[in-house]
């Protein structure tokens, strides 16, 4: 089993509904977020190109955060989901420094927090909150080992990229281009 998410950069309008859904679903403290929207403008006027990406933890298959965690609080769960166990986290900040995507933040209670792919929902057969609410249906979630999952189907049909694969992390967030 290998959970992954695909983000359609051509359909995303940058409404930030995914951000708010996540904050509500996961009780993210005010002033923090586990997912966020990036807008990149390329080119020179009038030949401009805009890419909008809904970003979150890449749940890397080769996670630097899991590697550098001194206590084992950062670990892999089923399907390669990268999780932090708050009761083992000492708040040293090593994983925050190790993440090239800056996907982790320090929770005001002292431990490190991040996207969980809504593992509590997946285990109950639901989709992550951000995927569920997306009004343009630009987020796809599923198991890459299951050829009939939403994410497998869309990755077979479309061209995609991952973010800085050269960082050696094997990211599992795919951006459809």
């Amino acid at each position, binding site marked *: 089993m290998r959970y992954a998410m695909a983000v359609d950069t051509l359909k995303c309008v940058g409404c930030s509904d995914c951000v708010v859904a996540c904050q509500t679903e996961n009780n993210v403290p005010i002033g923090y977020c586990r997912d966020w929207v990036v807008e990149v403008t390329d080119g020179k006027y009038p030949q401009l190109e805009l890419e909008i990406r809904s970003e979150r933890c890449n749940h890397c298959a080769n996670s*630097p955060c899991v590697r550098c965690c*001194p206590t084992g609080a950062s670990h892999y769960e089923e399907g390669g989901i990268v999780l932090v166990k708050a009761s*083992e986290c000492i708040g040293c900040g090593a994983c925050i420094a190790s993440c*090239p995507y800056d996907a982790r933040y*320090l929770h005001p209670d*002292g431990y490190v927090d991040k996207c969980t792919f809504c593992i509590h929902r997946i285990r109950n057969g639901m989709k992550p909150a951000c995927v569920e609410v997306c009004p343009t249906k630009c987020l796809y979630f599923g198991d890459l080992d299951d050829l009939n999952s939403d994410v497998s189907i869309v990755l077979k049909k479309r061209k995609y990229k991952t973010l800085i694969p050269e960082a050696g992390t094997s990211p599992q967030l795919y951006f459809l281009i």
Partner: protein
Amino acid sequence: MNEMIDPNLNIWHWQIPLYLFLGGMAAGILCIAATYYIRGREKDYSTAVRITPFLTPFLLVFGLIALFIDLRHKLYFWQLYTNIKLQSPMSWGAWTLMVITPVSFIWCALHIRDIFPGWDWKFGWIKALEAFFNRYKKTLAWVMLIYGLILGIYTGILLSAFNARPLWNTSILGPLFLASGLSAGAAATLILSRNKAERMQFARIDLVMIGIEIFLIIHMFMGYLASTQVQIEAARMFLGGNYTVSFWIFVVILGLLVPGLLELLELKKFHVPGIVPAILVIFGSLMLRFIIVYAGQMSRWLY
């Protein structure tokens, strides 16, 4: 959004570089003391073997306090000692400190009479312990040397293991921090020693370490500039960017070149107050940690 990450990583403040400096200097002092003890040169370099190590329990304890202040989930710190994670430099650093801190206390206890000649341990069991460690002092010195080296190198590797911060992601940092720790350790003996021959020897050690550091720094920048765009950008912070003035003035000129020149003059029999180069070396060693830790957090992947 997400303070300490946005717009730049800002997770580590004064505590980490201060600890890296204190730990590195303690490692330098202990390695030098252990080496001279093992080689049987205790008599020639008695300050370095017997007196300077008295600084290390203080350095290490202050370093540990700084580390503890840095933890944001403090009551869970003991989780560090529930496992050994070989891939995490922080994990084996924690275990190294667990060994080297008591060893530094024991080493001082064995030499307490060099500072307080009339010292009496009062309790029989402490005297028995002292006799035990005195019998195995050579083994203790080997443990001190090996763990001192690990402590000195790991403070650099801790940073170089972070691929996400291109400035840190160079294996030169391990040897560079070790050399810098050894030179700060030699500088401590240079300040404390009253013996001319010993001071000359430690001026020589410091000079060699300064040479090695300059070589490693040049090497580090050659490595950055010949590497990928992210490391070229990282090097640019020191070659015209925000950290240019602080790095080249405080670390390279005041921390390496000036003390190196003064020590060279001292060895050529000019009269130089030995404390000046020694303090500059220690200052440069501290600044190196601060600048690398802060600048590293500003360097990032581009996407």
